[in-house]
């Protein structure tokens, strides 16, 4: 972990960028990867997203108005898969899976190129058979961190704060304690998300965790088009590569 040479793959901090499914998403994903993203989350919009703050909520409302229902989102995922080679992870809410069928959703998402899934309102003890990236929060007990780590698919999503998604002024002071507890309990890679927007915040989070997830600010920048997103992601990449 001491090595900071970006050419050595194992030390590289993972950069995950969240985009909302939509007609622009494949081109935006391509730009994000060109900027240095290692993984792209694709939001499948839900009408009542409890874990999300105003930026992602509004983007979901817009996407739904534009007809981004589950089938259209899966097509968007497949198109994105044709354009980028990094892991793609749909992020959504349980109501979509209830309607589509959990197993069918998992099958069709993976067939369309998904590497895993994130379901924001499906805690680790619900539907243990559905392979997905599990989330833990600063409020999680050690017992729950252990359960989530055992069941997670590849990496553990650390919610840095008690709150919803969206940019904050500073990186959550709760992250350090959460990373420390999680490290004691598990060896799975830890990616930190929620409230990470600036390169400085990304670097500070990456000093602690193995990767970062940037959502709301990426959506805001994505509205200016792929070139702006590429530049923004590159600035995050540079900050992560400077993290120790």
């Amino acid at each position, binding site marked *: 972990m001491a090595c900071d040479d970006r050419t050595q793959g194992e030390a590289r901090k993972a950069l995950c960028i969240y985009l909302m499914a939509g007609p622009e998403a494949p081109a935006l994903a391509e730009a994000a990867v060109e900027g240095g993203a290692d993984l792209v989350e694709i939001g499948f919009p839900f009408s009542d997203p409890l*874990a999300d703050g105003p930026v992602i*909520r509004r983007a979901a409302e817009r996407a739904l108005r534009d007809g981004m229902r589950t089938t259209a989102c899966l097509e968007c995922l497949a198109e994105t898969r044709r354009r980028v080679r990094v892991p793609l992870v749909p992020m959504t809410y349980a109501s979509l899976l*209830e309607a589509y069928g959990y197993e069918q959703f998992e099958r069709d998402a993976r067939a369309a190129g998904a590497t895993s899934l994130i379901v924001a309102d499906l805690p680790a003890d619900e539907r243990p058979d559905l392979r997905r990236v599990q989330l833990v929060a600063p409020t999680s007990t050690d017992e729950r961190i252990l359960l989530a780590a055992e069941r997670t698919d590849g990496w553990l999503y650390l919610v840095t704060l008690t709150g919803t998604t969206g940019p904050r002024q500073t990186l959550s002071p709760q992250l350090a304690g959460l990373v420390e507890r999680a490290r004691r309990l598990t060896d799975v890679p830890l990616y930190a998300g929620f409230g990470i927007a600036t390169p400085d915040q990304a670097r500070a989070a990456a000093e602690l965790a193995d990767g970062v997830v940037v959502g709301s600010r990426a959506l805001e920048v994505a509205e200016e088009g792929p070139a702006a997103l590429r530049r923004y992601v590159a600035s995050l990449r540079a900050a992560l590569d400077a993290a120790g």
Partner: protein
Amino acid sequence: MTDGFFGPYGGRFVPETLIPALEELQAGWRQAQDDPAFWEELDSLGREYAGRPTPLTLAQRFSPGRRIYLKREDLLHTGAHKLNNALGQAVLARRLGKRRIVAETGAGQHGVATATVCARFGLECVVYMGEEDMRRQRPNVERMRLLGAEVRPVDFGTRTLKEATSEAIRDWITNVETTHYLIGSCVGPSPYPEIVRDLQAVIGREAREQVLAAQGRLPDAVVACVGGGSNAIGIFYGFLADEDVRLVGVEAAGAASLGVGRTGVLHGARSSLLADEDGQILDARSISAGLDYPGVGPEHAFLRDSGRAEYVTANDEEALAAFQRLAETEGIIPALEPAHALARAAELEAEVIVVCLSGRGDKDLDEALGYLHGL
């Protein structure tokens, strides 16, 4: 129910951040349930502060030739059954050491009840309310503010109870360490549906005793309106074991989560919802802000499937007609929500009927008179 589910319905479909708070709430609730001092405190608050027991009134002129009894939750302090739940949860919050309360409100009755108990116990109170509901229920907004609560308008989506509930839950996610979410109906993640039911069950316990005393027999049917379903589950619970008593829930025709809904997840629980084939939640529509909700308590979905309760609908016009008729024949102005129950009770083939008159209609005068004069 031991695992948070009623058959396939219920559960905890919430972000992980809230799970420990729900476990803490569950443990606190189990302790309170087993503590006679908790129930004694609630009983005495009920008698001395809220006005329990509420009367059972025979509505002779409303429905001549039959015996329709009204369980008068409209006479409870603050004018609706909502206070039963708010008082119980405030006492519970105090036991859990929470000094800040957040709540959602639709018609404003739950918001007023919550603001009231927060004033009574000296707790900080924030109530989320959709802008459309603030317009429809202006007097209740003023009452909440007078009681010292902060009313936060919700200006997106449907601007009604659905979005107000989502915002209250988001506030709770953010302030979970200091805050108790005082949910207003038997909805939400486990253990809320169970807590709200047990706190509202006083309606059914009293009603059963009162109708036995008045008639010397059990009623043929018990009728209540269903939005989220808390007054209905409260009165149904008193008669659940009496298998010959029909339990009839009445939904607003434009918000029939049980009548035309499908299984989905909203606000932390799996239930029967107004949703499209992709699981996206649809807008409900009713003249009654308190029934204007696309979800329903998971236990009602279970009672529907099991056949123990039946669920029907009444439309705006039928509710308004019953609203006016009860005022003219009995001198009682009901809220528009229980007016839906009255509309169906009036035509039920049964001799002895108990209707839960869940609230009074003062809050609805502007809205109802506007429609009645326009008809």
